[in-house]
């Protein structure tokens, strides 16, 4: 409970910084996602109330932008880049291999909530395509084998700084 209060205090600070202005909605949603990890219904209702906006408006904006997550993501997140260069370099096969190996579906999480497989349109690391991001680490020129072993290490709590 204490931590969640703390988070609400941080959110309030953000709201105040932006003067509770409607035009800062995107910035506020960004900050809220950073603080809470994702944007659930209650949080959106809370933000709508604070900005004096209809909940439908806040919901509409949130769902429009793919960067905002509305479901709790897994403990670790693998993000596959779907940009053109990655497509050309066969990111699709890596995605399929991850799905198979860890038994999860694209866009979803494993049953134990440890791992999610998400997507991004392009991170602009195209010269190192295909690119896969495990938590915050970008893996360039990725192959099935490297990615799967890195994910296993991550899940097993092994820190691995080599790229």
């Amino acid at each position, binding site marked *: 409970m204490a931590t969640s209060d703390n988070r609400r205090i941080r959110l309030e600070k953000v709201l105040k910084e932006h003067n509770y202005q409607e035009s800062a909605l995107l910035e506020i949603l960004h900050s809220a996602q950073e603080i809470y990890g994702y944007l659930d219904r209650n949080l959106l209702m809370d933000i709508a109330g604070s900005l004096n906006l209809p909940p439908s408006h806040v919901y509409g904006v949130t769902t429009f932008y793919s960067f905002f997550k509305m479901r709790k993501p897994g403990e670790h997140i693998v993000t596959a880049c779907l940009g053109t260069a990655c497509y050309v370099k066969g990111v699709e096969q890596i995605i399929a291999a991850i799905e198979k190996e860890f038994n999860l579906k694209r866009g979803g999480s494993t049953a134990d909530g440890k791992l999610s497989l998400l997507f991004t*349109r392009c*991170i602009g690391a195209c010269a190192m*395509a295909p690119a896969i991001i495990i938590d915050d680490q970008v893996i360039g020129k990725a192959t099935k084998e490297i990615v799967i072993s890195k994910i296993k290490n991550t899940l097993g709590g092994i820190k691995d700084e080599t790229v």
Partner: protein
Amino acid sequence: MLKAFEDAVKEFGVENICKVARTGCIGTCSVGPAVLVDPGDYLYQCVTLENAREIVQKHIVLGEPVKRILYNNEGYFQKQQRLVLRNAGKIDPTRIQDYISVGGYFALAKCLATMTPQGVVDEITNSGLRGRGGAGFPVGQKWSLVARAHNTPKYIVANLDEGDPGVFANRTLAEADPHAIIEGMLIAGYAIGAQKGYIYIRSEYPLAIQTLQKAIAQAKDMNLLGDNILETQHKFDLELRFGAGAFVAGEETAILVSVEGRRAQPRPRPPYPANQGLWTKPTLIQNVESLANAPLIVLNGWAWFKSFGLPNCTGTKCFSLTGEINNPGLIEVPMGITLREIVYDIGGGISNGKKFKSVLVGGPSGGCLPEPLLEAPIDYDSLKKVGAIMGSGGIVVLNENSCMVDTARYFTDFCIEESCGKCTPCRAGLARVKEIFDRITTGEGELNDIDILEKASEYISNASLCGLGQTAPNPILTTLRYFREEYLEHIVDKKCRAGVCFKNEKAEE
């Protein structure tokens, strides 16, 4: 890595002749980490921690470059013309002093001290600079429209949404030389009478965001942003706005509503943003690369700028060169260079000894061009003629392993995902097109599907509200035009020569 070099410099006691500095990206992403030794522009590739000591010892102390790990690719830089990227890899983007030491903010000072706002607009107009974000609209003309608009206040929105997948030129510019963007905005602000600007940047670029934030703070400290800039009456304030993963938000009417915190859906024009933009006030929307050209033009004069590129398409353009080639990376070339020079001389040709198949120019709404069109010069008008667009400067090279039908399907998928859903031709039309692609790539295609694709493409491009729908059919039309036999093979022979299609287990979604 930085530390390894610093340690080596200390070890050999050459601190007084050698400074280790961090820089932005040099553009040779495929051979990173890269280290540049000046003077002489020696570029080392794939440097390891062990190499650091060797480079300092041999090159700095003994004056003998370590040939073994030098980037040995003459062509890569020879055919380039680095104006906008002149500082990329040469200065520390986190230090405003570095930018100033190479002539940064001199153009702003020149404007404020010696030029009228109209004089600045004229300079840009005469230079022939055209918008680098896609459409190629003359920049000077746009400035003059906003300058003449009566309503106040006026705003500037710098477009750094760079939503085209496969493109990273604007990102690199922001990470390597953020002050060039800021100075460009300041000059534009002076020319059109705006005192407030926003940089709309996509949230997928955390390092670029950090770099810009730092640059803005430093510019404020040095009184280059804020009130009484350089002790004059000129005022200008700058804020960042973050995108959130919507390609269409880069469209000029959509970016406005996004900055206002709403769903990024385009609206019909007119009214044009130059008259009714942010909060219905006159607004200049300009790509960051267009803006970064402004200081150069002001400083060196329009006639100098016109000496680069073609008469009707002046200057240079940055391209993100990727795909199946030997030297992917960020390049800057004079307008009018041919695709062949880019792919072979700069790009080093196709990697792994494979055969060239096609080059995609202009991102998801660009065109897929075949080998004979490699002779085409790169400029807005020539590209349009062959069915592609400049877009934001993406060049992706495909080899024989790519299926052109599947490539067109991939881009259609992208445009469906990113369609804002407001107008029917784009939302529903593209969905029908995708059904046809799904049939063709799973062996259910029929011959008249080709006719339907052509007709639908025509309707979608003519009837869509914004550029997304209007250009979405480009990959379909160009693949049908230049690679028709692959469609026929899929439909008649149920064969995919690249071995990409007809995999049933490809049950997506």
